[in-house]
């Protein structure tokens, strides 16, 4: 039994079958990559996992509980954090505040009217936030406005915001999209480091094969909304169906 179980998920947008009978099982404490050509349904699948879309049929279970029909903030409170394709951070706030907010969300739940406490007085949370900023090597930028940072830094900040919540499952939607090679390698190193330091399950949606093969322990290949194969990276590399799907796209 995996921590995340997707069974028989279908999703239609009008006449387009975006997902057709998708089954997926992500084992705890592994890095699971979901790859596939453009339009394969990777992002639709991810949106079904976080509550942004509701599948037409099928079930999505996280740790034995269904996530279907729950709102994004409820799903996050269950222990699923998400990194977006373009970093979603609080641009008007400082780096430190960006990290403090998930700390509060983790401790106080989805709403609490703490209108008379003072942020710096929450010693425990401040320490936690500082520690994560040290981990991602951003402690020197703690008072900088998040919007003024480079894209790579925004990405690292977003990951720090997800990690400080100690999620059980971290979903990454093309974490290296639009990055230079050097930044991509830094991100890979960062993710490896994260994985080495803590018990965390990651599901990565990715285009870049270099990233996929350096990180993933299991790979699911999606094509036209259905999973083609699921296997280890070594086996995937030589798999004829995968080659066909990708080569077919390259030629077309």
């Amino acid at each position, binding site marked *: 039994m995996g921590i995340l179980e997707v069974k028989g998920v279908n999703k239609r947008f009008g006449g387009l079958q975006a997902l057709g009978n998708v089954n997926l099982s992500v084992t705890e404490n592994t890095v699971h990559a979901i790859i596939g050509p453009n339009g394969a349904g990777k992002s639709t699948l991810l949106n079904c996992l*976080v509550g942004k879309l509701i599948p037409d049929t099928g079930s999505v279970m996280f740790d034995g509980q269904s996530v279907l029909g729950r*709102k*994004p*903030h409820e799903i*996050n*409170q269950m222990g699923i*954090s*998400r990194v*977006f394709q373009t970093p*979603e*951070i*609080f*641009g*008007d*706030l400082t780096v430190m*505040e960006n990290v*403090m*907010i*998930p700390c*509060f*969300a*983790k401790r106080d*739940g*989805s*709403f*609490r*009217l*703490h*209108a*008379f*406490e*003072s*942020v*710096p007085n*929450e010693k425990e949370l401040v320490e936690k936030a500082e520690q994560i900023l040290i981990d991602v090597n951003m402690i020197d930028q703690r008072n900088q406005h998040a919007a003024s940072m480079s894209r790579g830094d925004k990405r690292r900040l977003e990951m720090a*915001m997800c990690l400080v*919540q100690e999620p059980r499952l971290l979903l990454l939607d093309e974490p290296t999209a639009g990055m230079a090679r050097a930044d991509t390698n830094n991100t890979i190193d960062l993710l490896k480091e994260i994985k080495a330091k803590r018990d965390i399950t990651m599901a990565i949606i990715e285009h870049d094969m270099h990233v996929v093969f350096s990180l993933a322990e299991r790979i699911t290949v999606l094509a036209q909304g259905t999973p083609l194969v699921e296997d280890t990276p070594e086996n995937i590399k030589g798999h004829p169906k995968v080659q066909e799907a990708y080569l077919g796209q390259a030629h077309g």
Partner: protein
Amino acid sequence: MLGLNSKDTKFLLIVIFLTLATPILLQPFPEGSGMAQFNAGYPDLMQRFAIYGIFAIGFNILFGLTGYLSFGHAAFLGIGSYSVVWMYKLLDYNVIWGLPLAIITSGIFALAIGFISLRRSGIYFSILTLAFAQMSFALAYSVLTPLTNGETGLQVYRSDKQVLLGATEPTSPHFFGIVMRENFWEPSVGNWQFTFNNGYYFCAIIAILAFYLSLRIFRSPFGMMLRAIKSNQQRMNYTGLNSRPYTLAAFVISGMYAGLAGGLLASMDPLAGAERMQWTASGEVVLMTILGGAGTLLGPVLGAGFIKYFENIFSKINDNVLHTWFGFLPDGIEDFMVTIVHPFVGKGWHLTLGLLFMAVVIFLPGGLVELGQRVGRLFRRRDINSADAEAKAAKQRANTPAE
């Protein structure tokens, strides 16, 4: 002190000092001089500064922090006023009954209106709040006449019961015998005439409390969450936070501030009219907040003061006054100057205010507060430059060998 760090404490103390010294600060010109008409230190206007300051501080908690632009806050202002006048009619003239009721009723209305309006954001939210406020205005004007006394406005009549009214009690609004419209000290120093009014100090103390409360909210985790909503609601939801209750809480708090301000208006002058709820009043508080600087602590208060000053002082400058100003010029030029200046003053004060507002929005998106910051930075830079020059000179002196 008071749960604030030293910088905020200093800031609060400055604000308290300025508020308490207002009757002196706003009276810079001696009586009888040509400039005396620019004095703003008379009770009626000072009360307005404090009351509309409270209104704008509350509005800023919603608009400045979360970015949700409400066009219906005047409804709460009106509800606050009606609550207070009703307490006069039923109990007595002591404002202690009415003000808490004003806060509670406006809070309840804000909860209901906010619950529905906050289902949408952006322009749709603004339109929904505007619709609610106009609805309240229309109802107060017509259907709800038994409650609001319609066009005439709600006021106390001789036939009203006033069950708590004692034989010796003052027959105008008071706070345990301190009558609002009375002055407790009217000193004159040379030609300067100062008025210390009970009502102003009552409003001022409440305004200081309201400011302190907003300062605490700005520095709290709750305030940080509200700023996060303005910044990126998507990330907010995917961080496990439900933005709806946060925005609703901000809406209710700002509605209560507006109710308190409305209650204070009726505490100074025991009358409540439906026009207090009209959309122009809602728009005015938006102007105040943006003019002063949305999202800053002091900005809304400055904006409120600015607009009320224009409304009361600029509107009094008529052609006669202009003729005395330009009297030193030859007749033809005098008339010409008066014709040019005429549209900007007197009844045309809106034009000046509009131009000023446009200038602020275009050149100072951060409002008057940004102007202050820029000027401050300019001076600081000059200080640093002169300090640098001195240091360089000192270095040079040290390097020059003694002769």
